[in-house]
């Protein structure tokens, strides 16, 4: 069976799931950011694959992916800034320790 759309979609799902798992289980906020980036990449793969196989002439998926990259960069920047701010105050980047508000 030659590689087709389904292969890319499964790969995308697997990568997304790995990212999701990491985001939910890592005890380091920066690692969570890393995992979110994996998830976004997974989405990008799906988008580009769709673009290639479903609507090859429009390149809409490519456009989408570019925007996602831009937003991801912005989000990473802001995210890091917040993590820095917390780190300066609390001296930790462990999300399980950052729970002063609950219930």
């Amino acid at each position, binding site marked *: 069976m030659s590689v087709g759309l389904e292969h890319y979609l499964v790969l995308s799902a697997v990568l997304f799931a790995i990212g*999701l798992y990491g*985001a*939910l*289980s890592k005890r380091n906020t920066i690692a*969570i950011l890393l995992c979110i980036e994996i998830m976004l990449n997974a989405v990008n793969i799906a988008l580009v694959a769709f673009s290639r196989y479903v609507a090859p002439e429009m390149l809409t998926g490519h456009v989408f992916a570019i925007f996602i990259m831009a937003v991801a960069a912005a989000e990473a920047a802001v995210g890091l800034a917040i993590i820095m701010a917390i780190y300066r105050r609390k001296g930790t980047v462990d*999300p*399980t320790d*950052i*729970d*002063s*508000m*609950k*219930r």
Partner: protein
Amino acid sequence: MSSQGFWLIFLLPVISFVLISVLVKPLTRRDSPVAGYITIMAITGSVILSIWTLAEVLGAPNHEIHVPDIIWVTIGDFTIKTGIIMDALTAVMVVVVSVVSLMVQIYSLGYMEHFVHHDGDTYTRYYAWMSLFTASMLGLIIADNLLLMFVFWEMVGLCSYLLIGYWFHRPSAANAAKKAFIVTRFGDFGFLAAILVLYTNTGTFDTAQLSDMAATGLLTGGILTWAAIGIFSGAMGKSAQFPLHVWLPDAMEGPTPVSALIHSATMVSAGVFLVARIFPIFAHSIEAVTLVATIGGFTAIFAASMGLVMNDIKRVLAYSTISQLGYMMLALGAAGIVLNHEGHVTVEAAKAAVAIGIFHLFTHAFFKSLLFLGAGSVNHATGTFDMRLMGGLRKAMPWTYITFLMGALSLAGIWPLAGFWSKDEILITALDGNTLLFILAMITVFMTAFYMFRVIFMTFHGEYRGGESEEYRHPHESSKVMVLPLVFLAVLAVGVGWWSLGGNFAEFMGEHHPHAAGFFDIFASSPWPIISLLLALAGIGLAYLMYGSKRISAEKIGARFKMLYNALINKYWFDELYENIIVKKALLGGIFAGFQEVDANGVDSVVNGVAEGTFGSGNIIRRLQTGQLQLYGLFIGLGAAVIAIVLFIVS
């Protein structure tokens, strides 16, 4: 005077009540007797009008005057009218009520003086209520429909309540008042139910129409019987018939004139009057009349038996009253049984049949109020009602003694006083109705004579035993204003019985049988009058032996029949049964307490429980909110996955 003028009989005391409560009370000094004068004037007016009414009715065809109704409330087809009826029954009753009331009001001027000057009472409150009572009682009598009767029926109950509780600061008086109201109300429930039943099935409240319907067969069967029984339950309450008799002895907590007026002569006989008023309905139900006769006969001997041992003079009289009311019921019931056996019962026949019972009511009113007023006079002299503290008052209070003796003889049924004539007719009717009841009635004759002369001997004979306290060391005759009514009533107690001679009274009520004509003819017609007279004399004799000459020791007899004596002195434990066992334990302590528990710990705690449950689940749900952001993220993923899976499964 138009026929609507009859309303005045009732309205005069109403005006008196309004005047006293609106004008006299704020405008006069506390001890001013103006209220008394107003009441006496108003009731004098009523007496005059009553006698005039009697005369009018005597002259009217069928002894009945029709007065047009006034429409009161209309709701669609439902109409309530107010109206009055003037017939023989009414005429007799208005005379009794207004005359006795007048005597009592005059007497009260003297009687209440003591309390006004010593205890800080006022004439106004007393006379206001007395006026209101008289008005209500007269209203009850003249009303031509059951609803209006019920209205006044309740009003007299209210006045009774107020006057029994006149000395409300005494807990015993307050309790007695409450008891009287509630026990009678218990009976009134039946009355109300009967009114509902009758209205629903006939569409009218009018007594005359109802009587006609009963006579013409429009109203029959179970409805009729149940209605009659319902009405009788009202009558049982008001007339203190077994088993609703318990309130009347306690009602003696009120001022004695009140006992004389309300609790012997008028209100308590309203039950008898009520039954008489719609007797056609009763007469058509053999069950109902048998019930009336049985309850009446039993009550007569049952109450008399308790009267045998009481030491409180008013209580003896109270039991006597219950017993005599039982007689009246017996008379009505027995007459009804007789009538029912005869077959077709017309309205006229039924109306006539009540003559015997009503005649006893008529005579009893006078001599019993006389006896009560006499007891009040004695109380004034001794400060007590306990006969064990009295004795020998014959010399100190000759007028009281003589009048009281007349009353007692009349009550005992001694020829030729009023009581003899009325009681004798009852005995004869009872014999016609039911032999067992007749025997009970005969025994009661003996008991009645005995307990009355027990009172006479303990109170007026022998040595004075000192009264209530030092203050009453030297008893003296009461003031003229008190003695005068006594004398007047004594005359009536002796003489009113003679109206029945030759069947005059019965004829007035509508009966047309031939009757024995003269004073002595009665003994010729049958042996029973002489036997009952002998029984009464035997009772007097026994009383003399035990309490006059003291040849027989009352204590010894008491000791020998200890069980019986205890039963009597404890009133067969009925108060105990009602108040402690049924009301306190079973109802208040049992069922009602159960409801209260259900309310507080059931219904309400369900409500509170729901609230707490909601709150609690809030506390549980917010535990999920751990502050761990990854948990929150987990829920996002999980939620999406679950929704997707559910949708996949569905589609």
